[in-house]
């Protein structure tokens, strides 16, 4: 049941606090995110700085990085994903507990970045797993990661618990497994997951 925002503020002025189950549930969820402890490249250094005293990710309830995917529900792809590393990243994502969220941190994680033309660099992790927040930058500053985390919190806050658009873990029919790519003769096979990364339309004459 939706609560009229004006009524809520008016009641708040009178000392009456009202909420809905959905708001309460999402308030709890967004303030207790457990990030997974792993870093891929230089962006990881900025990620580490974000968790430390100066930037203090703990203010947002996500300071405890878990070394096991079983205890984590947020993955920060911090750095270049090589084609050798991509299967491991996708497997770890599969092993994480639901509901799981992904922040792709830095130019490399979102597109391959400066190493995009490299033969062994994955051109964006969103080819295999659904990414919730992309952060540009090379590397992004800790403030950018904080901004991304706040964006993710807003996203979690806005998720309805029922009906279309509800999070994947509340939907029995939603996809639960994301295929782990295997190294093929020339590239990873499959080269992307059609379910999360619909193939962009190629424009003739435009070099990729």
């Amino acid at each position, binding site marked *: 049941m939706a609560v009229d925002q004006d009524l809520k503020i008016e009641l708040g002025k009178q000392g009456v606090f009202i909420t809905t189950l959905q708001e309460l549930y999402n308030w709890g969820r967004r303030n207790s995110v457990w990030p997974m402890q792993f870093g891929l490249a230089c962006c990881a250094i900025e990620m580490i700085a974000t968790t430390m005293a100066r930037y203090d990710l703990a203010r947002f309830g996500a300071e405890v990085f878990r070394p096991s995917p079983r205890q984590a529900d947020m993955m920060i792809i911090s750095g270049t994903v090589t084609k050798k590393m991509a299967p491991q990243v996708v497997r*770890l994502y*599969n*092993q994480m507990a639901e509901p799981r969220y992904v922040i792709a941190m830095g130019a490399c994680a979102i597109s391959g970045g400066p190493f995009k033309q490299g033969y062994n660099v994955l051109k964006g992790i969103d080819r295999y797993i659904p990414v919730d927040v992309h952060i540009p930058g090379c590397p992004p500053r800790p403030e950018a990661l904080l901004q991304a985390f706040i964006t993710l919190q807003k996203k979690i806050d806005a998720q309805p618990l029922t009906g279309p658009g509800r999070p994947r873990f509340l939907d029995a029919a939603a996809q*639960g*497994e994301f295929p782990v790519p295997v190294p093929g003769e020339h590239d990873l096979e499959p080269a992307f997951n059609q379910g999360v990364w619909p193939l962009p339309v190629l424009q003739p004459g435009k070099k990729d």
Partner: protein
Amino acid sequence: MASSPYFSLAVLFLAALAFGLTPLALAWLWARFFSPPKPSLVKNSIYECGLESKGDAWMQFHSAYYLYAIIFLIFDVEAVFLLPFAVAFTGLGVAACVAMLVFVLLLIEGLAWAWAKGVLTWA
């Protein structure tokens, strides 16, 4: 029953139990009805830092490691038995002392063997 001096304690114990178990039960019920599990082969596989686990955990160790076992027995396990022996030493008879001496001598034999093998030499 209510007159028992432990009655209030029992009530508090039950309240403490309920305080801990109710959230757990609620969380379990919530997960049961609203959060369908999505197990899969990849999700349920052994966690190996993202790598696929290879082989069996029940592997054999090479018999060449027996020297480590001997050294461990002499310097670690022996102390566990020597300490109670030393504490109770004044109250022990001759037979107990001889038994302990045999035990220590057996271990010293192992030390001599390890010494002869050159394990104690800093490489």
